[in-house]
């Protein structure tokens, strides 16, 4: 009796996961707990961080088979959702339905600011390549500078899947930290007088322009960078749902139910890629550091472009608007408004900043397409 009981207890101990827990797994749980805390107590990007943290926790448990290729539940979510490029484009469908291109079309010259912010993305790409990182990884790290989560995930899955969890967390962290990272750079790069510049109201945008835009942009931008098509096409389709005003149900489904559903699968799959062996590497710190550099340079380069445009333009642009060229929508635009209002409380830059902000999303999409073409 005695030895049998011992034997079966031993069997249970081996069958359960406890004996196989490693310290690396423990570290990953701690990180997951930290993310739970940030998401729940600090409301730090909770829609993504919460499922990411949970995916991370369960993917770092022994013997679960969750990420076993061909069999595991989370592996399937990842493989068919992210690796097969389904989820990020569906998120963009919803984002398209939520986006009003009006502020951008009302002041088309501000589009250049959205392009200017991609400088950080490309400089980081070049810098990382020079430091010996391979092209695929360098591109994946550089795109963090756009501060665009779904685009970063899309590119990482295509070029450097082993970095996916890291760059996704970096991109979403910097998005959430926009109000902390950007203002010091913005104050440093502009004078008080520049921050007080008030913008001339833009022209009125006709509804027909808003309908034509997603169709024309869908044609021209995809012809320009065909590799951006999966994201760009869905983005513009979502926007056409919105502006055509004849498919309210499709618009609502894209921006609400569908986006919420795929967000669940996106979060948990991204978290599941963060296994201890992928994440506990010196490279991760390097990725976070370079990502921060990319994001800071993007902020600064947008401001510099605005200042350059002012050299040639009669109607001066408030150079703070350049900082909205990163694609954290609408966070970066809000930050521009706040920093502008510190200098002059009657300066309302918010809606002007939405122009470069949305142009920044398009810019990051195009940059991702360029990287796919260059590095594949």
């Amino acid at each position, binding site marked *: 009796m005695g030895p049998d009981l011992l034997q079966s207890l031993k069997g249970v101990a081996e069958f359960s996961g406890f004996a196989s827990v490693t310290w690396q797994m423990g570290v990953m749980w701690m990180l997951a707990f930290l993310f739970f805390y940030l998401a729940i107590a600090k409301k730090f990007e909770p829609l993504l961080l919460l499922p990411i943290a949970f995916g991370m926790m369960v993917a770092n448990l022994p013997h679960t088979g969750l990420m076993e290729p061909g069999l595991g539940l989370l592996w399937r979510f990842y493989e068919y959702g992210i690796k097969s490029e389904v989820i990020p484009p569906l998120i963009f469908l919803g984002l398209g339905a939520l986006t009003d291109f009006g502020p951008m079309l009302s002041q088309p010259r501000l589009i250049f600011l959205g392009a200017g912010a991609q400088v950080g993305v490309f400089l980081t790409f070049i810098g990382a390549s020079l430091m010996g990182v391979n092209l695929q990884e360098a591109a994946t790290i550089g795109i963090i500078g756009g501060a665009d989560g779904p685009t970063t995930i899309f590119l990482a899955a295509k070029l450097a899947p082993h970095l996916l969890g890291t760059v996704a967390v970096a991109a979403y962290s910097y998005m959430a930290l926009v109000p902390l990272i950007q203002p010091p750079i913005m104050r440093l790069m502009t004078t008080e007088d520049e921050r007080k510049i008030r913008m001339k109201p833009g022209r009125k945008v006709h509804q027909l322009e808003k309908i034509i835009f997603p169709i024309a942009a869908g044609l021209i931008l995809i012809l320009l960078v065909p590799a951006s098509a999966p994201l760009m096409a869905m983005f513009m389709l979502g926007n056409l749902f919105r502006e055509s005003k004849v498919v309210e149900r499709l618009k609502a489904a894209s921006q609400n139910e569908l986006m919420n559903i795929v967000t669940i699968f996106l979060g948990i799959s991204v978290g599941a890629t963060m296994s201890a062996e992928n994440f506990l590497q010196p490279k991760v710190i390097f990725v976070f550091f370079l990502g921060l550099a990319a994001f800071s340079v993007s902020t600064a380069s947008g401001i510099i472009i605005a200042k350059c445009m002012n050299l040639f333009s009669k109607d001066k642009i408030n150079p703070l608007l350049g900082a909205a060229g990163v694609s954290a929508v*609408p966070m970066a*635009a809000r930050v521009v*408004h706040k920093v502008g*209002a510190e200098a002059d409380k*009657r300066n309302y830059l*918010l809606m002007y900043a*939405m122009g470069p902000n949305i142009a920044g999303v398009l810019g990051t999409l195009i940059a991702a397409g360029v990287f796919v073409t260059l590095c594949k």
Partner: protein
Amino acid sequence: MEKLLAPMAGNIWKIECKEGDSVNVDDVLIIMEAMKMEAEVYSPATGVIAKITVKEGQDVEEGQALLEIDS
């Protein structure tokens, strides 16, 4: 008569004054909301609110008249 115009497109979230109120320059008269951000709209003059031409919850365009002040 001084008109207060909407400084940006957005939604009238809160009206912090009523007709007949005496107000000073720079008092917060209206709080607007756009892109999930609140923005205070300040009085352009010292005087008495003569007429409020918007309601809470209403969407306004940039430059639309919000209220009139007898100054």
